[in-house]
């Protein structure tokens, strides 16, 4: 049972809401954090916790694009393909990733390290092209930069180029007389 070791977190989540079903998305997110995807076993377990039927859980889970219902690679690369990023070069970047990783969109590399996805707007339109890998945003991307990010992730599992607290323009950057 995947939630056994998270009993405290589950109780805390349930405590936030007067109606149990509200805990559904937080528990689905927790299951995905734990296993990398939302398994059928996890959905049945959640149904048990929330007094729902498994189809009620499945019905909700299939609505939300971030929930992976199948196992994916260790690093989930999600490149924004919406217009604002496309205007500043998202398409060549997706093509580059496709060639560099040797997988198509929606596929995982043979070593199970990288899954390549394209997604719609991630709310980072002023700093495109951009992508999200697992929890982190990477912005103002170039092919060279993406190459370095992938290298870092392969080698150490982390990359210092991920975005910190967002502010664009930064203080002093591009200040114009008002």
């Amino acid at each position, binding site marked *: 049972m995947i939630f056994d070791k998270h009993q405290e977190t589950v109780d805390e989540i349930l405590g*936030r809401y*007067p*109606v149990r*079903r*509200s*805990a*559904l*998305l*937080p528990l*689905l*997110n927790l299951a995905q954090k734990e296993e990398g995807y939302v398994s059928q076993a996890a959905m049945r377990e959640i149904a048990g916790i*929330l007094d729902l039927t498994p189809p009620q859980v499945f*019905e*909700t889970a299939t*609505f*939300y*694009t*971030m*929930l992976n219902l199948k196992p994916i690679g260790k690093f989930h690369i999600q490149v924004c*393909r*919406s*217009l*604002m990023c*496309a*205007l*500043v070069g998202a398409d060549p970047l997706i093509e580059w990733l496709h060639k560099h990783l040797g997988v198509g969109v929606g596929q995982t590399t043979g070593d199970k390290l990288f899954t390549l996805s394209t*997604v*719609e*707007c*991630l*709310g*980072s*339109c*002023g*700093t*495109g092209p951009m992508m*999200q890998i697992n*929890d*982190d*945003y990477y912005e103002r991307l170039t092919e060279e930069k993406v190459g370095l990010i992938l290298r870092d992730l392969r080698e150490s599992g982390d990359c210092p180029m991920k*975005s*910190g*607290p*967002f*502010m*664009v*323009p930064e*203080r002093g*950057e*591009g200040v*114009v007389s*008002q």
Partner: protein
Amino acid sequence: MKTFDKILLTNMERPGYTGSLPDYEGTGGYKALKTVLGNVPPNDIIEMVKKSGLRGRGGAGFPTGVKWGFIPKDHPGPKYLCCNADESEPGTFKDRQLMERNPHQILEGIAISCYAIGAQTAYIYIRGEFRLATKILERAITEAYQAGHLGSDIYGSGVTVYVYVHVGAGAYICGEETALLESLEGKRGKPRTKPPFPATHGLYQKPTVVNNVETLANVPHIVNRGSEWFASIGAPPKSTGTRVFCLSGHVKRPGNYELPVNATFRDLIYELGGGMRSDKPLKAFIPGGASAPFLTPDHVDVQLDFESVALAGSMSGSGGITVMEEGTSMVWAAFRLMEFFYHESCGKCTPCREGSAWIVQILQRILNKQGRPEDLRTLAEICENIGGRTVCAFGDAEIAPVQSTLKYWRAEYEVLIEEAEALKVSRKEIPVLSVAQAREVEGSLS
């Protein structure tokens, strides 16, 4: 551009400001909450916000004080405040900055707003991709509880406010307020039919206010400096205050710029944004997120306020301005936005669900030079059959890129379709035989 004071970005632009609680308190943070709790009757705060002219910053621009005033005062059970942090309108990235750089400004706004409407619980519904903002908000909430700015009996006033962050899981439509409520209840994020409105039947069918992050962040400033001050900024009486405008696309300096709403697109694009990124001139811009109809270089002197943009035939929406340079195909731009809407349609209403798919197919074939002369009429008809015929505003939003590009750049569509026709003619060089002719040929071969 005339000199003005920023409201929302002032703190975070100070050198060394991290957004921590000591930083926020050091700049007068939580003073507004202390002032009002137990001293100012809740109804006076609602009146103050009404007089300030503050309007929703999420897109619809509904007057915030009026929205609060719809909450029944004598309701015996719980009431709720939901902070809409789902920021997912393409072209918009201001709430992310407000949350990651100055989270307490939002929490103070939430606490005051909860007091004003009589809610003891607030949920911040944040889009699932905003992991960093989620962490920062959760940390700030913990700090605020520890310092007594949130929790039960705040400052001994007897007022209780609990704030929880509720993380979404990827769905644009959950930024629509009733879809947000459905999602918060653990269901598919499908907008509800209105009425009843959330003010009486919201979260768990209880009176609920849903306000955008930026809207709530303005509240402490209105309390501190008064509604007259706020109402004097911008384009009073209808559009007041400043807004954080998000500039993206083909400009030199994209980013978040706070401006009084009587500034113009020219101020934003050319002065703050540094103008076009290359020698190519401006061709088009979207003035208020993907849901707003495109505008042309003729509109750069339009003011940024809700009324002026509406008069120009578009909407100020979420304040996301996307700039496109000469050489950008408008058919392609409309197609990319339509793909977004097709992907994000929740599927509840047939015109939106099916119509978005048809529009994507038609735009794709026009771009692939397989368009047909009747396609432009078909596109216009599909749009007419979506607009105003859906439960939520998504239907009206998804036809905006198509209708506006057809209005201003129809020739680009026509050229592509003419090229398709020309290709068809050249294909005709391979003879197509009638049945009788074919039999004749067959006979001569046997």
